[in-house]
């Protein structure tokens, strides 16, 4: 697995798109910090971007890599290695190279800015951790879609739809159901609904740091326990890990029966 990982990682790190992605974050980091001079605001803007863009890029890279390397994957499948190792290697290769683009792209401007002296270091690292999680989750999800869809165009379409659903539509349905069922106790429902969407989950993790003053305005006991203690942080992190583990397990399950 490590051998496959190594080479897909090499391959991806030298691809033009990795550079574009890296440069995008680099530029973003510099613009936010040096034209703005407000670290708090930079972190908020970055959150908005990371939460939407990382899943999108992870999804696109995931499906593209799968379909583009289909033939090469067949060559690998004829080698004396386990199937799941080939795909896990590729999966980790993509996820790690994307994460590296993110961490270096944003890390360099922040380090130059003197982030380590700033109090925002914790918020910023949390942002990177969440971004990394989103990469691993969405590459896994898109690999699942690609593995289940032979047709490249269809697979691409489904993947983008999945992203659109999780990034926008889900929250729309969520907020509408909150407003409609206004007269019922909704605290448990809203926390559970958050857990079912990795983007919402990542958002909550960052909100726990950035907007804790607002979140503590909730009256419900469940909310108070979730937001007022480390409980919320732990649960969210745990569920994020599940969001990586479950698609990866499903990938391995799917692989056992898949024909190439």
């Amino acid at each position, binding site marked *: 697995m490590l051998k496959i990982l190594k080479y897909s990682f090499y391959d991806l790190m030298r691809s033009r798109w990795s550079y574009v992605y890296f440069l995008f974050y680099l530029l973003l980091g510099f613009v936010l910090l040096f034209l703005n001079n*407000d670290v*708090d*605001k930079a972190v*908020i803007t970055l*959150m*908005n971007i990371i*939460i*939407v863009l990382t899943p999108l890029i992870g999804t696109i890279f995931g499906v593209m890599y799968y379909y583009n390397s289909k033939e090469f994957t067949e060559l690998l499948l004829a080698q004396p290695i386990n199937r799941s190792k080939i795909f896990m290697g590729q999966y980790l290769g993509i996820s790690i190279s994307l994460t590296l683009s993110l961490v270096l792209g944003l890390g360099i401007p922040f380090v130059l800015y003197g982030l380590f002296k700033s109090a925002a270091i914790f918020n910023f690292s949390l942002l990177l951790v969440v971004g990394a999680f989103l990469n691993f989750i969405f590459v896994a999800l898109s690999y699942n879609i690609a593995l289940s869809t032979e047709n490249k165009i269809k697979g691409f379409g489904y993947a983008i739809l999945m992203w659109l659903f999780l*990034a*926008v*539509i889900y*929250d*729309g349905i*969520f*907020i509408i159901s*909150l*407003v409609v069922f*206004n007269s019922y106790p*909704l*605290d448990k*429902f*809203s*926390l559970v609904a*958050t857990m079912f969407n990795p983007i*919402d989950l990542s*958002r*909550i993790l*960052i*909100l726990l740091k*950035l*907007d*804790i*003053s*607002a*979140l*503590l*305005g*909730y*009256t*419900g006991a469940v909310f*108070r326990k979730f937001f007022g203690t480390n409980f919320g942080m732990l649960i969210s992190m745990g569920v994020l890990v599940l969001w990586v583990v479950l698609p990866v397990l499903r990938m391995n399950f799917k692989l056992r029966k898949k024909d190439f």
Partner: protein
Amino acid sequence: MKYKIGLFFFFMAFAVSAKQIVVCQSCEVKTIKEAIKMAKDGDEILIKKGVYKEQDIVIDKPISLIGEKGAVIDGNNVGGILIFQTNNFKIKGLKIINVGLSYTIEYAAIKVIRANDFIIEDCIMENVFFGILVEKSKRGIIRNNKISSNRKNEASSGNGIHIWSGEEMKIYKNEMFGLRDGIYFEFVKNSIAHNNLSYNNIRYGLHFMFSNNNEYHHNEFRNNGAGVAVMFSKFTNMHHNKFRLNWGSASYGLLLKEIYDAEIYNNLFEQNTIGINAEGSTRINYKNNTFLRNGWAVKIAGACYSNIFIKNDFLNNSLDLAYNSNINDNKFDNNYWSEYTGYDLDKDGIGDVPYRPVKLFSYIVNKTPEALILLRSLFVDIINFSEKVSPVFTPTDLMDNNPIMKRIND
């Protein structure tokens, strides 16, 4: 000023004839009560190092009570400790501990009844029910005291400095924590509280009820139920205070209820659940305040008329402004909003398009508090944008026509 000079001559006169009574375990006079019995007007009682287990010490003549370092009066959690019923007294440097708890009587470390022209300074009060309780008094100075307790709920706790019916009081450089209210003004006029630090109190850091023409400035209120509550009061002047970290479902930096004609300027509201919560507040000028990373910077609940917000900084608050109705009689102008996305083509430092501080999302959260969990979601940004373009639910005329492009009160 006039009374200050009077006070000066008053003490000068005593300096000539006053004598000192020393209290200590090995002295002739062993208890404070004994010393007070012996003392004449204008005498000074010097309390030496040691623990004095006494309660209900009534002082009814104008004398000074001075504690040496290490002088402690321990009330044994029975009742009140010192009760002053005289004008022109002074108490300094004492440590007073363990005031009794009662649900019917307001026991205090230092109770002052119908006294004018007094000074309470450099005292430490620990494990108190009420710290300093002043009734129907004038021209008192309370300074450099440290008052604390460790109470868990409102019913079993008292206030740090409680003034009931007073005039021209000066309260400064005191530190209060673990109480119900740090400082409580009830029917108080023409008084000032400044440079106090009030934190970790169960209810309010500072509380005004039916008190007019008062001023407080340069105080810090941190992590209280609410920083400051001003209720049913007129002409209150609030400036250069810091309201920080007041977190909770009913927590505010500043709570305004039924107040008129107040000035609020140069204050900092940082990381409170709600920076300012205003209900029935009229003719209030908010100027040069900084609202930093609050849940809601300002929440206008109802019946607030003719309020003016000028030159305030709204920085990275989760929500800048919440309104529970779509009528508006308040004015926002020349503020800095970190959320503002407009442009300034003519480079005059003022944004060329108006800013609407009330978002559709803040309207939704008002109706359905749980929706707050969707804060900063892309979907929320989209609906906020559409509401911004054509307002339906939020007050149409509520906007800052001249948003400033740079921070004002940096």
